[in-house]
């Protein structure tokens, strides 16, 4: 239990996926204009990352290791993730229409989110068990959601600020990300 908690806090806050590992920067910069959409994206990432960590861990343990083909992990993982996102989308559309209404538009964007592949590979590199892998995936996604929702809140406020012309748009967002990143390095002592 203690181990799991350490993994969870470590991936959600201390080694935040966006602010210290630079994974999933694209949606972090692209879909963080409004809190609502940011939260929707976060929800979709939590959903997909948790499932994909489970599936990729299972495939790694029971297919790749069993057949001695660990070196194929990159190819297998990326194709599994791409197929999984499509399946989740179709499944949601049929079975959970309200959830699909809320998260559907973000799902196709998630395949390009390098955090998904990143977590699958980290789980292998760190030798996590299946449960640890799922916890790591879930916590990483929670960390992503925290970062993107905080950023969206700041950006909604920044709409009213007088930003120098050259810094409007992306630069001021990146500067904000820098300050958030500095704040998050303060968590480094926790574990």
């Amino acid at each position, binding site marked *: 239990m203690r181990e799991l908690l350490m993994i969870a806090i470590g991936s959600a806050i201390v080694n935040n996926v966006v602010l210290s590992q630079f994974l999933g*920067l694209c949606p972090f910069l692209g879909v963080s204009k409004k809190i609502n959409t940011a939260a929707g994206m976060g929800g979709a990432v939590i959903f997909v990352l948790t499932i994909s960590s489970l599936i990729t861990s299972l495939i790694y343990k029971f297919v790749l290791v069993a057949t001695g083909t660990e070196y194929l992990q990159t190819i297998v993982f990326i194709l599994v993730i791409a197929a999984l996102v499509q399946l989740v989308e179709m499944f949601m559309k049929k079975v959970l229409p309200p959830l699909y209404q809320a998260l559907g538009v973000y799902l196709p964007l998630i395949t390009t989110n390098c955090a998904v592949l990143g977590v699958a590979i980290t789980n292998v590199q760190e030798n996590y068990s299946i449960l640890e892998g799922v916890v790591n995936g879930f916590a990483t996604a929670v960390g992503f959601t925290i970062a993107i929702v905080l950023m969206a809140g700041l950006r909604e406020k920044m709409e009213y600020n007088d930003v120098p012309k050259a810094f409007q748009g992306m630069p001021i967002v990146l500067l904000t990300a820098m300050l958030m990143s500095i704040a998050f390095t303060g968590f480094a002592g926790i574990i």
Partner: protein
Amino acid sequence: MKTNSPVERLYNGIIKENPTFVMMIGMCPTLAVTTSATNGIGMGLTTLVILTLSNMMISLLRKMIPDGVRMPAYIGVVASFVTIVQLLLEGYIPELYDALGIYIPLIVVNCIILGRAEAFAGKNKVIPSIFDGLGMGIGFTIGLTSIGAVRELIGAGQLFGFQILPASYEPVTIFIMAPGAFLVLALLVAVQNYVKNKKAAKGQPVQQSSCGQGCGSCGNTVCGGKKL
């Protein structure tokens, strides 16, 4: 210059559509590995090799890949080359392999590679595609190396691991930590915006950056339209 001639493709990749400074794509590795000039050049060259090989292969296969499944097919090709290069690096340059770590397998989802496959190699002949990959790869290497050099110089007083600034210089360590990456990129984009605004004020045509929203728009154009 003749369209699609080798020289034109190289010029296009290095100057006109430089992936780092003009198009602003492939930002995840750009920020993550540029803690030193050496890492920047290593990542740049790794991407260069994979990009050139995948462009060549995709161009060779372009008439065989059905349009509906082209994205998964491209991903398969790119992932295979990434695996090959990853194993070679692990075997022959273990220092670089350790330094780049998880960002080597993540080259698969680098927008530049799938973007070039979709925008160029899938529609053009083999020779121009190879030079397109080379040009883009060299442009990316130059971008990463220069960002890495700036961060290493300010953050550690070194360049390629050699002490450049006098020992009395107090390194601004934050530049080689995560926040420094955001800072350097923010200033880079601000300079780019400034130049664009100047040009626009003079009434000159401004080349629209394809990725004004970071790589957010890349998700829409390249990979979001994935058909499986």
